[in-house]
């Protein structure tokens, strides 16, 4: 168990600048998810922590010790790879015990620890099989077994679930979360899947173009995104962005979207914003509900919407309509809406809405 501190980390491949100045503190036992679109440098960052890539600049500390010049084997980390990277010429037991054997652990102890890891993951019956005889989910369990058997200071996961089908992915996600609860070791997990990030993380580090765009608890990022990039990346279906103008009239602020004037929640800080500033109003589908009360509640804006696209999912339906010319999606109860073309009163909860500067795309 150990904390990780990364300071001023850069990684360049020739002219390509993959990681551009990362500062990151990961607490002992924390589950940190590095998330971002492909090519954002998250995997490179993880591989640099593992020692599989050399950093170009900056330091990496594990447990208070600068490990920049340590070989991967001396960093006491374990890694689970996207393609599992099992050794095809060894059976499951040998795969799991390989790291212990490489560290010259006596055989009886290796066997005991392999058996214990296999029991934890429910793969004891598979110990004699070879990787080619296993399904994707079983291979992934073996890969995780190979990591936990060593009892490392840090676990690194490089998109471990992206080769699995959807159902198995959900199942393994739960298992990884449970694993973290059971062994409480520091884990750093790379994914491009925002649902994995939201469900697994104690802390999400959202990366873009080799830099950290925003980091924090999943709900913080979800509720208070620092930019349209973060807001758009987290949450499915995506947040809708509506271009408008900020109007400040004394203490009351509002956003004008062509003919509609949406009041900004009173007491919301609008530091630095000026009257007439071009903004983007960010609305998540769950910020919109079908109006049932006679008058809208405090901080909500009622709008008569004409639904032009309906996507039922069973319990809920995603309804798309146009507000001031821009498409907006609302997540409604399935019984609240029946067909496209229907006219509905929709309440927009402005207390939860996000406001971004239209030019910089940063939150106001």
């Amino acid at each position, binding site marked *: 168990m150990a904390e990780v501190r990364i300071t001023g980390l850069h990684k360049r491949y020739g002219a390509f600048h993959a990681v551009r100045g990362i500062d990151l503190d990961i607490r002992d036992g924390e589950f940190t998810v590095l998330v971002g679109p492909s090519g954002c440098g998250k995997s490179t960052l993880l591989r640099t922590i593992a020692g*599989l890539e050399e950093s170009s600049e900056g330091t990496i500390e594990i447990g208070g010790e600068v490990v920049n010049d340590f070989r991967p084997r001396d960093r006491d980390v374990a890694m689970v790879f996207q393609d599992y990277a099992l050794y095809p010429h060894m059976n499951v037991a040998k795969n799991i015990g390989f790291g212990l054997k490489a560290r010259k652990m006596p055989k009886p102890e290796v066997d005991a620890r392999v058996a214990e890891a296999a029991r934890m993951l429910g793969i004891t019956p598979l110990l004699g099989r070879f990787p080619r005889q296993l399904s994707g989910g079983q291979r992934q369990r073996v890969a995780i077994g190979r990591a936990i058997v060593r009892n490392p200071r840090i676990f690194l996961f490089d998109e471990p679930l992206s080769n699995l089908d959807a159902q198995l992915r959900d199942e393994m996600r739960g298992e990884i979360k449970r694993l973290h609860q059971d062994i409480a070791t520091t884990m750093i997990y790379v994914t491009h899947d925002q649902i994995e990030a939201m469900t697994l993380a104690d802390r999400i580090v959202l990366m873009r173009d080799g830099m950290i765009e925003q980091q924090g608890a999943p709900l913080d990022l979800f509720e208070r995104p620092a930019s349209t990039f973060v807001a758009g990346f987290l949450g499915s279906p995506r947040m809708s962005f509506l271009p408008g103008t900020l109007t400040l009239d004394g203490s009351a602020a509002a956003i004008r979207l062509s003919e509609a004037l949406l009041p900004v929640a009173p007491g919301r800080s609008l530091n630095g914003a000026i009257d007439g500033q071009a903004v983007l109003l960010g609305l998540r589908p769950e910020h919109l509900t079908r109006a049932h009360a006679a008058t809208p509640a405090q901080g909500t804006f009622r709008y008569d919407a004409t639904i032009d696209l309906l996507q039922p999912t069973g319990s809920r339906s995603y309804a798309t309509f146009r507000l001031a010319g821009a498409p907006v999606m609302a997540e409604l109860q399935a019984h609240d809406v029946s067909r496209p073309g229907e006219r509905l009163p929709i309440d927009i909860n402005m207390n939860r809405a996000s406001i971004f500067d239209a030019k910089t795309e940063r939150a106001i």
Partner: protein
Amino acid sequence: MAAVAPVRRPKRRSIPVGRILLLGFFLVFVLWPLYWMFNTSIKPSDDYLTVPPVWFPTAPTLVHYEAALFAYRGLDGLINSLIISLSATVLSALFGTLMAYSLARYNTGGQHLSFWVLSQRFLPPIGIVLPVFLIYRGVGLYDTHIGLIIAYTVFTLPVSVWMMFAYFRGMPKSMEEAALVDGCTRWEAFWRVAVPLAAPGIVAAAVFAFIACWTEFFFALILTSRSAFTLPTVFRAFIGFQGAQYGEAAALAIVSLVPSIALGVLAQRHLVRGLTLGAVRG
């Protein structure tokens, strides 16, 4: 109304006449010279060139084998060939694997070194044999096993390196990386993970190297004389001023086939996988 199911007649597969003809022709094409060679090797000398030919010798004899192996020193050539070819094959596989791994994983020498290695095969042998001969005479390698082993290792290395290079490049890096994180040094990750996985490629490269050494004639002719001569050079003696010794030539040719065939059978499983150059993985 009960419907009567039509009686389904199992479709009979028609006899693939074209395929049988083609395969038959191919078989004859390949096996006929072998048969004739074997036939000649056990015929009495008088029957070599008779018209009509003798298809099955009535009095088979082993005199040609005896003459080829002992009088013409074919056995010495065979032993020399085995020593030289096997040594060169092992060295070529060893150095080829190391070099190919280095090229594939560390990009040693940038993009040019790997091509330079292959470019060594562009040189026509005739262009270098004379300087090599002079150097060998000077340093005492002429007509020695070591001399020919060195020469053959050098000549087979480019192809070994390129076959292995392609193989290593087709292997995902992540298994070696997993080994590094698991606690291996670079050397252990190479030796305990990369090499076992590359075994089919190594075997394929080694078989190619062996065949190249086993059949090599030109350098053996120039660089050896009475002691380190190899099997192919023995064949020279069968065409002399007394006429051609067809029986002895055929007998020695049959003998020289044995190691190649044995090797091919032993390595067949690896060979097929190796030649796909990493495309097929378990």
